[in-house]
């Protein structure tokens, strides 16, 4: 698709025009960190952010959402809740674009998850490339997710005073033409973009000791590795890693009644496989009782199960889990330690 040039100074104007027709969600500063939030003013947009506390997944799968509204009776009545809001997610980094791609597959393969798909189909993603690692924890390049091959409507690259803007879809092209002040990229701009892109790769140094494609087979060999028990002694089982992970999407379903005890709604809420009750059945049996088993399950999902189901990795190397972890369980250390044990 075509390449355009957009002045950085005009970015706020672009956002402002979009705000007339869309809810524009972008990185904003909050309490010394950054979060994705609906912009109240265009100048809140902070495209210089390193990484947000949470990925933008909450805008497709909110922490709590209403699936149905119901009224008791004979027969009862139930109506699904539809999502109409049109959104632009602004400044999404490659790791989160790749994570969203995985969520799209998880919520559309075999059966369409209507609430997710309604939000997703009404959202446009304006991606923003990373030219330096956000901090010492990220290992996106190693997971192959510093690179984006799709999953965005527009993709921006910082060229200093201007952004190079590539439209990834027809909808993205329209978003540029109708709302932004753009000029076609010159041969010089394209050359500059290529230089910037070729120079960024060497700055990303943190990596796994194996190729991500080999994680599944390595994990297969380390099911009974003592590391799971060792980690379980440290792990608090708090589920913070589940909360901040851009590809964790497991959920619980709960009903809430109004005080009239006749009407209510059915909601889904984020849940986490690190929590002991996650596999509890009504009789009281817990099928993944030990923390070591729950840790292993989480890492297997990230390195193996999701890859086998969807052909994409369940880990995008964003490093949010280790940043949130109170005892600093680091996915790179976990995978590398397991890998080393296979090579002895």
């Amino acid at each position: 698709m075509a390449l355009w040039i957009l002045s950085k100074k005009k970015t706020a104007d672009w956002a402002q025009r979009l705000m007339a027709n869309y809810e524009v969600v972008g990185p904003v500063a909050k309490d010394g960190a950054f979060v994705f939030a609906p912009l109240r003013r265009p100048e809140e947009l902070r495209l210089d952010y390193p990484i947000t506390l949470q990925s933008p997944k909450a805008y497709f799968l909110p922490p709590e959402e209403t699936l149905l509204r119901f009224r008791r009776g004979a027969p009862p009545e139930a109506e699904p809740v539809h999502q109409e809001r049109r959104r632009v997610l602004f400044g999404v980094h490659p790791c989160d674009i790749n994570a969203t791609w995985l969520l799209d597959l998880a919520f559309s393969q075999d059966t369409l998850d209507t609430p997710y798909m309604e939000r997703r189909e009404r959202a446009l993603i304006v991606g923003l490339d990373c030219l330096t690692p956000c901090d010492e924890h990220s290992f996106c390049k190693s997971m192959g997710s510093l690179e984006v091959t799709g999953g965005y409507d527009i993709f921006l690259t910082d060229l200093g005073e201007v952004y190079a803007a590539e439209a990834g879809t027809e909808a993205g092209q329209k978003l540029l033409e109708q709302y932004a002040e753009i000029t076609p990229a010159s041969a010089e701009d394209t050359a500059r973009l290529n230089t910037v892109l070729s120079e960024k790769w060497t700055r990303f140094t943190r990596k796994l000791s194996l190729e991500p494609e080999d994680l599944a087979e390595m994990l297969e060999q380390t099911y009974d590795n003592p590391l799971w028990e060792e980690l379980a002694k440290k792990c608090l089982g708090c589920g913070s890693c589940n909360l901040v992970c851009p590809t964790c999407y497991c959920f619980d379903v709960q009903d809430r009644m109004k005080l009239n005890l006749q009407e209510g709604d059915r909601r889904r809420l984020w849940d986490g496989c690190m929590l002991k009750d996650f596999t509890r059945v009504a009789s009281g049996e817990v099928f993944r009782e030990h923390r070591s088993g729950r840790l292993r399950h989480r890492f297997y999902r990230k390195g193996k199960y999701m890859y086998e189901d969807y052909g994409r990795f369940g880990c995008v190397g964003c490093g949010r889990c280790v940043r949130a972890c109170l005892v600093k369980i680091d996915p790179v250390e976990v995978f590398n330690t397991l890998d080393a044990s296979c090579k002895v």
Partner: protein
Amino acid sequence: MEEQTQTSGSLYLPRMAEILQTRRLTEKENLFTLRLERGQSLAQHPGQFVEVSLFGIGEAPISVSSSPTRNGTFELCVRAVGDVTNAMHQMGVGEWLGIRGPFGHGFPVEKMRGKDLLFAAGGLGLAPLRSLIQFVLDERESFGRVIFLYGSRNPSELLFREELDEWAHRNDIEFHLTVDRAGPEWTGHVGVITTLFPGVAVNPRSTVAVTCGPPIMYRFVLIELLAKGIPESQVYLSLERRMKCGVGKCGHCQINGVYCCQEGPVFSYAQIKGLKEAIG
């Protein structure tokens, strides 16, 4: 029979069903006869499950206990053990609930035709097996021997007593019943279900075994079935997990990398023997 999952409308929107009859089976289990709104057929495959909705309480996965060959209505055998099931036990004829599904893969009835069938049910495990047993009895001439083993903790916990009585008196079912413990009034066999196996001779290659019961039972019943030489691909079991969505999204029922709600709840032993989380 083509297996289908419900895809029209919202994935999470139940269809409504009316309670036509409730029958007390034991102190803890009731059998509910239900009919979907507008006379729709559930079109379940034996061994599939549904998500039962009690609005304001929640949803619970329950296996269907009746065969699709008995159409128009369907039956759920429900133990009062959680929020939804306890509330369900308070419900009576003329009341309504929600149903999503049927979901998952049931028993491979087409592969079972012409084969001898060995059923081994423990406790509430009879609930999902009954859908297949009814199916087999309704098309009895399509199957070979029917050997039925059922174990319960004590006589008062036996489910479907009237049907057990009927099956015991049929000459085309080899019927074996046991209880773990019993008082002097019990004249039948006493002992765990595995004590019934020495009395059963099978032709292993032409036998399909189907078992359902608590996880602990599987460990011992599987040993018996495999010891009889029945191939691993001809031993089927139905696994219990907490399916919240029924469609492979919510994550709760995953057994290693396998979604029990989609690939199961019925699995062959060959399918699950490599899954370390399957039966512990």
